[in-house]
């Protein structure tokens, strides 16, 4: 592929004229097609603090039933995965996924000195900081900043939403947020905005105005690239008609049409179940599981499951003991789900939560969430995790 084609193919030709400022340096990435093994990471955020104990239910532990008299899931309703833990009955759609070996559950993931504020704990998870450290960049953002061989495009990371999460913001690079590729394409290709960009070379400096133009050009070229690459693809799978499934459907369309994006970010909110948890969490888990199951099968059908890793997290788990309103309050450590076609260790990864050794009524964490990130960065995204996480974290062997 020659330089010109490369630029055209990746949408770097802005406003019809060929100009690429030196600091955008897209050219070293020439061999991308040869790299071809395009590994995708999909991050799924469950906002509000999902109650992990009613998600992966420790039905083999009496303490669970003692502490949750009104909201415990009855043993006969649990979808058993081993003789200690099983899934919430609303997650039936994932049983098949589990049985295929496409799912790993990591118990008790957390961090030292846990913070029980939604905002703060979400920040910690998104930035990968310590609990007393304030970072203004996200872990995926810093991965983009690292400018590795495969992460230098403005569309390397896409969040299927209207606005961009902190996780996706780096110092010099940021992911792109879009809900509807056609709408973003229309917006960026508005004739006025095109005229604004027409032949504008002098602004591409590294000052703030240059940064604005650079962002605008990248958005425009990314929008064109995404729209043009993905518009023809039609998924054959039938997704449930929920917002969450629609996000996954968009991701599947992007992955299956061969978009050279590496990280996708989607989220599902409403997990802050202080009151009457059973119905509310049940509905959400159902949406989550049904969407996820179709998504994974859709990828499988398109031969993309092997190249895809999905990771699900929430900002914290909830207290072991239920509250007086048939709900649960903010807690600490929580389980994480990993999905994909190339998992090394399938099913339940580590020991179930120890409900008799609590820290002020909350679970103690077994694994730091940054070990999970570190594993993904090292083994899936091929960057040295200490560069992104600011210190080295031991990796795990789920992939």
């Amino acid at each position: 592929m020659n330089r010109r084609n490369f630029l055209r193919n990746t949408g770097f030709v802005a406003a019809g004229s060929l100009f690429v400022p030196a600091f955008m340096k897209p050219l070293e990435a020439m061999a991308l097609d040869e790299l071809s093994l395009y590994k995708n990471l999909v991050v799924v955020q469950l906002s509000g603090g999902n109650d992990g104990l009613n998600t992966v239910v420790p039905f083999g532990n009496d303490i669970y039933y003692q502490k949750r008299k009104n909201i415990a899931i009855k043993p006969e309703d649990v979808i058993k995965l081993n003789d200690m833990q099983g899934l919430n009955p609303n997650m039936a759609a994932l049983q098949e996924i589990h049985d295929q070996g496409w799912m790993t559950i990591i118990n008790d993931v957390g961090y030292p000195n846990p913070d029980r504020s939604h905002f703060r704990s979400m920040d910690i998870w998104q930035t990968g900081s310590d609990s007393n450290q304030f970072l203004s960049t996200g872990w995926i953002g810093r991965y983009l900043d690292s400018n590795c061989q495969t992460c230098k495009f403005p569309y390397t990371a896409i969040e299927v939403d209207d606005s961009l999460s902190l996780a996706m913001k780096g110092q010099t690079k940021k992911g792109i947020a879009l809900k509807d590729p056609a709408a973003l394409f229309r917006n960026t290709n508005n004739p006025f905005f095109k005229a604004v960009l027409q032949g504008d070379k002098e602004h591409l400096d590294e000052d703030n105005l240059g940064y604005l133009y650079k962002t605008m050009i990248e958005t425009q070229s990314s929008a064109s690239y995404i729209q043009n690459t993905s518009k023809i693809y039609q998924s054959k799978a039938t997704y449930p008609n929920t917002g969450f499934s629609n996000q996954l459907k968009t991701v599947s369309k992007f992955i299956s049409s061969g978009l050279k994006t590496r990280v996708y970010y989607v989220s599902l909110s409403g997990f802050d179940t202080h009151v009457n948890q059973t119905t509310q969490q049940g509905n959400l888990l159902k949406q989550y599981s049904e969407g996820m199951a179709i998504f994974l099968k859709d990828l499988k059908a398109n031969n993309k499951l092997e190249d895809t890793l999905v990771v699900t997290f929430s900002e914290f788990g909830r207290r072991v003991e239920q509250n007086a309103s048939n709900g649960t309050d903010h807690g600490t450590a929580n389980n994480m789900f990993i999905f994909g076609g190339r998992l090394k260790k399938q099913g339940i990864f580590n020991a179930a939560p120890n409900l008799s050794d609590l820290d002020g009524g909350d679970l103690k964490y077994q694994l730091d969430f940054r070990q999970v990130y570190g594993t993904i960065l090292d083994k899936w995204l091929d960057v040295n995790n200490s560069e992104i996480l600011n210190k080295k974290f031991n990796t795990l062997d789920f992939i």
Partner: protein
Amino acid sequence: MSAKENFFKVKHLYNRAGFGISYSDLQKLSRKNVDKVVSDLLKEPKPNDLITLVDGMESKRQMLIQSGLYAKKDLNDEEKKMRQEIVRMQNEVSKDLNITWVNKMINTTSPLREKMTLFWHGHFACRSNDPLYAQQLNNIQRLHGLGSFKTLLVEVSKSPAMLQYLNNQQNRKGKPNENFARELMELFTLGRGNYTEHDIKESARSFTGWMYDKDGTFIFRQNLHDEGPKTFFGKTGNFDGENIIDLILEKPETATFIARKIYKFFVNDQPNEDHVKELSSHFYASNYQISELVKKMFTADWFYNSENVGTKIKSPVEFLVGLSREFYVTYNKPQILIQLQSSLGQYLFNPPNVAGWPGGQSWIDSSSLMLRMRIPSLVLNDGEIDFSGKADPEDEAVIALNRSATANANAKAKPKSYVNANADWPKFIDTLPKRISPLELTEFLLQPKLNDKIIKMVSDNKGLRSTAVEITSMPEYQLG
């Protein structure tokens, strides 16, 4: 100094010290010496214009009911309903408070005071579910924002919002909670590297007993205060919270930390350390008089240097307030202001964390930039940019797409954009000179220097209104 030069200086000053200025006011003030304009800005009367939206008595009554309800183990249905209702009302009032402040910024006759309040709002970043506490803290920042930094710091430290947010309510003798003590030094005064972990521990002990009572009033609870000796910054004494604050203010590093942050907010994201030093030594020598620091900054020659003019990325609130102020915008559904703050990443009273909004380039990503460039046309012109540039053949498809989207929108008989706002065009045009050209208007609306491309783009424009909509939709308008 030429009148033209003064014109641009005052425009820059009002853009940074306030939220912009009307053409007619600018013409008037340009006749004065800039130093005089600065001292007039600072000469604003002590404000009696605090925000009084949240009624203390009513909110106290709710709090009392609520704390009673939370203490109770089993609530009956009626109590549950009441609790939900109180939470709902608090959320409602919190939103009203937000809108009240935004409108105050849009309409204020004391722009510097509101701008300073906005600065301290980010510096002493805090979230409170209780709108009364949030209002109190906001008023403290307004009342003391240009006064003594020590008074401001003490008042903020004593505010229920902050005591609650940083857990000083739980900071008791024998069971210290270090959250407030840590942020006091790390984020509010000294910055990292100027104290030890031991200093934090001793400071936390000194602030034990700083609490608020059921009425939302500061109270020093002697019986919960650790009266023992503490060693802080190498000095030993039976310190209390105010002693600690005094010791922190004795360190010139505090003046430097604050001066640098103010410089980054008002002058340039990239601090020039010589200028920061100039400001911080003056600030320290003035015994932490904020107005002195601000005056020094706005009268410095370097404040008007080209590297500091039209080069800062406006924060979302500066952008929204500036636009609304400029064009006398009214929002028919004020809730949209909250939605826009949230989409653009600066939801007032809801900072991301105690470190506040990081600012600068972090305001801008692909989605926030595209939205920012869409907002002026949505606010001023129901989504239309009357642009009649020559389309190349490639554009035709897009234009067709847009047409059908517009046709669909029109078919829905929804004449206003979702932003649903009205600009007062006659009033705006009235502030302009009679024979102002589109180019002159452009020069007025944009802070960055005009380049050939923009000059060319507006040169064949006919109307002032279409020029204004186009110009405010450009990347250059994001800079102030």
